């Protein structure tokens, strides 16, 4: 996932870098037969309601749209009305406000997910405390539903493997099942939500049968049990 710089006030919204400029050929992750998909996302750090403009044409090229509200009211409107995919929970400071269950459940019903990133917690101890406390508070409020965990890494060494992250989420106060969903199912839900937001209605996916079968035959080495269970009935 590409991390674009946050928009400051008055600065224009940057355009995502086209994939062909980044890399000639996308790498294939082990255990899969297809190359990875790279998407672009925009994170808007909001301290004022003018920072987010609804249906702005500059948001169009991004696959995912995320907001990080800084105040109580913005959080409420982000959960209830804004047309975004992800709401970020701050990891580098104390949670600037407290919220109740109502707005969070409003967001859950609309299919918006909440995001916690873990790379800051690997970097130093104070931010680790903030990350953990904010994540625990959040998972108390939402009972562990529809949380996604992302890396937000700036160096390659801050990335962690999927199993490690799944297990790390138990420090965030998620149960085993919710932790697994936070890395697998909820992320996919966020992507689909982003796609349907872009096309403004719904989407119909078509895929070739042959590719599907090839994927099934791929070695089970890196596929989690959950993943395997999901693809088998197809």
């Amino acid at each position, binding site marked *: 996932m590409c991390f674009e710089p946050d928009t400051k006030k008055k600065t224009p919204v940057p355009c995502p870098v086209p994939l062909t400029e980044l890399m000639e050929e996308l790498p*294939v992750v*082990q255990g899969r037969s297809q190359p990875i998909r790279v998407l672009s996302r925009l994170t808007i750090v909001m301290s004022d309601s003018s920072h987010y403009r609804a249906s702005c044409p500059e948001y169009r090229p991004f696959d995912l749209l995320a907001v990080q509200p800084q105040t109580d009211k913005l959080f409420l409107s982000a959960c209830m009305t804004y047309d975004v995919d992800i709401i970020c929970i701050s990891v580098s400071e104390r949670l600037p406000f407290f919220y109740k269950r109502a707005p969070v459940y409003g967001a859950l019903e609309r299919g918006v997910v909440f995001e916690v990133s*873990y790379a800051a*917690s*690997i970097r130093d101890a104070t931010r*680790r405390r903030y990350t953990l406390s904010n994540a625990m508070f959040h998972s108390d409020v939402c009972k562990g539903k529809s949380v996604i965990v992302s890396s937000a890494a700036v160096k*390659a*060494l*801050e*990335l*962690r*493997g999927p*199993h*490690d*992250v799944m*297990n*790390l989420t*138990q*420090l965030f106060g998620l149960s085993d099942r919710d932790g697994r969903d936070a890395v697998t199912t909820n992320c996919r839900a966020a992507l689909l939500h982003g796609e349907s937001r872009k096309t403004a209605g719904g989407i119909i996916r078509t895929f070739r049968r042959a590719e599907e079968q090839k994927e099934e035959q791929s*070695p089970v*080495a*890196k596929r989690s049990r959950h993943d395997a269970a999901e693809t088998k009935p197809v």
Partner: protein
Amino acid sequence: MVRVKSRYLLCEVNATDRNLLLLLDDRAVTVAVKDVVQRIHGDYGAALCSFGFSVKYLNAVTGIIFLRFPKRCYKLLWSALPFITSIEARGKKITCFLNCIYVGGTIRTCQKFLIRYNAHQLRRMLPKCKNEEERRDVQQAILDCCLTRNHTDESEDALESEEDE
């Protein structure tokens, strides 16, 4: 009698400089893990870690480690592992992270997985070979591990040495 159960974590050390991996030894890894558990979970974690935790196997060339944890608390101890950013070995600091690829109840299943995993790595290596010699070596290694797997499950030592290329 009920026997003591444990979990084995198969971890891969990913470092920026692969030559530094050769410095790794059991002690360094043990110290690094105990240190990080102490840092994350405090005295309670350190106490859990002091009993029944050990580094069972370490391959400095491929950077593969088997860690053994008591089954009762392996999740707690495992959750501290992502916070490892460097391992200090022989006076040098290796910046790296541990990537856990498999969790098994016995060392045998871990070994089986590792063999399959390494064979798969070889197959991925094949299209990336630069010159003819490398290519032949990798092909030979794949052939060898296919043969050993079909005949006996035992002769894995021969296999291990092949995979280091």
